[in-house]
């Protein structure tokens, strides 16, 4: 049984197609993160699941029930919004109980649920305040509480942390994770922040232009990006891309005058491709004094940026810029000649024409 199942969902705003025949199955209790650049249709997809937008084509199922045309309140969902969206003239208690009153639940039951949510989120002392008298972090807690009291099957979050400052954001992120392990509900979480995605998700759906590019566990997304877009979008600083060609029947990668041995590459059949792109994450590279034929590329140190735990070294290689992450103890002087050693087992190779991983 899928908790949420989106089938061939298409959504057009007038003549603009925002979601294109999109499919997504979410397992019971799973934490799914929809990740993508701003404007790629994440919120639109979430609003479709919530029933806040009328879809153009396709179906939406929640817990084996076709809810494509059901009202938002009948879908068994709770939702948290980016702008908190608390009712300004109601107290926190009023905000939490508004939906329950609309459901005509008995007073005692409302009291019980509000009390429980307040206890989980530690907002008990705030219950009689108005939202205007709360800080940003407290408001977002209340907004989460308002979703919790609904006892929903599925919780939907639309960038809930992006209005908060960095410190609060990481605090609440941990709290949301704790909440998920405590409640074990299905959660669909929209963000454009890859740290949030990588830390929270059971699976990440990377979206671009209304299409899911890759749906996988965070480690897979990170280590085996399905295409150039996913590879470039995830990771900070971004993956290094070396354009070149595969030669020798797919055994080597040629980039300018240099050749790298593809023996350790973990992927499909490489074959000879006239234009390919080798993707190397900064943390999968090492700098050494001596070359190793087929495994290293010569480069010149440009800038060394110490960042506390590690440092980021920017190198010039054939007019191309490359970043390497090193332990901070290793200081390098600008102008130094070094050799970049490549761990091919962690590299990603893409076909330049299709942009797909090989």
């Amino acid at each position: 049984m899928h908790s949420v199942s989106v089938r061939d969902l298409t959504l057009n705003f007038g003549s603009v197609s925002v979601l294109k025949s999109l499919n997504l199955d979410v397992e019971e209790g799973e934490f799914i993160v929809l990740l993508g650049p701003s404007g790629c249709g994440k919120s639109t997809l979430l609003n479709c699941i919530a029933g806040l937008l009328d879809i153009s084509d396709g179906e939406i199922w929640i817990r084996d029930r076709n809810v494509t045309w059901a009202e938002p309140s009948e879908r068994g969902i709770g939702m948290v919004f980016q702008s908190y969206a608390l009712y300004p003239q109601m107290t926190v208690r009023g905000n939490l109980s508004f939906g329950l009153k609309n459901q005509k639940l008995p007073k005692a039951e409302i009291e019980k649920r509000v009390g429980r949510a307040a206890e989980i989120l530690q907002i008990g002392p705030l219950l009689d305040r108005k939202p205007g008298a709360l800080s940003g972090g407290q408001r977002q807690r209340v907004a989460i509480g308002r979703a919790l009291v609904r006892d929903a099957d599925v919780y939907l979050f639309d960038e809930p942390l992006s209005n908060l400052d960095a410190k609060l954001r990481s605090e609440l992120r941990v709290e949301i994770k704790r909440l998920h392990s405590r409640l074990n509900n299905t959660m669909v979480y929209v963000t454009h922040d890859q740290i949030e995605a990588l830390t929270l998700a059971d699976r990440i759906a990377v979206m671009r232009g209304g299409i899911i590019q890759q749906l996988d566990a965070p480690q897979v997304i990170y280590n085996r990006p399905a295409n150039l877009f996913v590879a470039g979008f995830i990771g900070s600083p971004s993956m290094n891309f070396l354009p070149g060609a595969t030669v020798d029947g797919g055994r080597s990668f040629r980039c300018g005058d240099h050749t790298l041995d593809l023996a350790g590459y973990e992927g499909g059949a490489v074959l000879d491709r006239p234009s390919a792109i080798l993707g190397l994450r900064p943390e999968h590279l090492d700098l050494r004094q001596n070359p190793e034929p087929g495994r290293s590329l010569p480069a010149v140190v440009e800038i060394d940026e110490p960042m506390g735990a590690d440092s980021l070294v920017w190198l010039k290689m054939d007019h191309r810029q490359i970043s390497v992450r090193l332990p901070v103890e290793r200081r390098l002087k600008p102008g130094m000649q070094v050799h970049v050693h490549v761990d091919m087992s962690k590299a990603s190779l893409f076909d330049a024409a299709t942009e797909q991983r090989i």
Partner: protein
Amino acid sequence: MADRPLPARTPAASRLAEGPRGARPRPTLSRRNILLYGTLTVIAAYYLLPLYVMVVTSLKGMPEIRLGNIFAPPVEITFQPWVKAWAQACTGLNCDGLSRGFWNSVRITVPSVILSIAIASVNGYALANWRFKGSETFFTILIFGAFIPYQVMLYPIVILLREIGLYGTLWGLILVHTIFGMPILTLLFRNYFTSVPEELFKAARVDGAGFWTIYFKIMVPMSLPIFVVAIILQVTGIWNDFLFGVIYTKPDTYPMTVQLNNIVNSVQGVKEYNVNMAATLLTGLVPLVIYFISGKLFVRGIAAGAVKG
């Protein structure tokens, strides 16, 4: 300018180079101030003088008025003209003063204001938050309605009211006021409700609130300022209306403005300037009181409509 980064210098040196900070203190009697306040005083006097003349005249007896010095304060203050204006002044038809018109106006204004605001706010809410099919077209037509000169519609409405049997009644006039207030009020409410964040509306939908629950429990409590603006617009507009009143009602249902006109223009006997002045002041009193009570809320509402948030 204030946050331009300054080159590093010793604090004392930089302060010297920078010169004194803050706005330059102005002498209270600078040429600029004299000119400014002089102009303002003249303009204020220009607007206040007629009011002053009206007030003093209304407090004088007729013999004093005949002396002809309209600016002189009353030698002997009398409230007799006010009493007469309210209860005894004659039009060509009756002699019970403005009181009859006052109560007619109350009976016209209160239902018109309530009806028009109730309908227009729901209209504006529906147009702003529930974009139904054809809502844009509907809105365009409504706005267009605001620009049709209403002289064009005077006579057709007479026929319309006659056909439905409301011509010459208070309810006929109430209907007319409600309809004519609709375009501008709907626009006012629509613009205000559009500035309410959309996510709030979505949250309420997830919480199971329908059209009316969202309207009454969420939108109305958030919108007190705009309701005040609408009330002021409508009360003053309808209270001050003369044209519709004179056309669509009959003598015993004339609103206060029409009654005032008839008292002032009645040609029996001598012109009682003091009574006329008192009657005019009485008629203007209601909008004045409304402004004084709600001036602050009015400004807040106008600002809230103009600026998001």
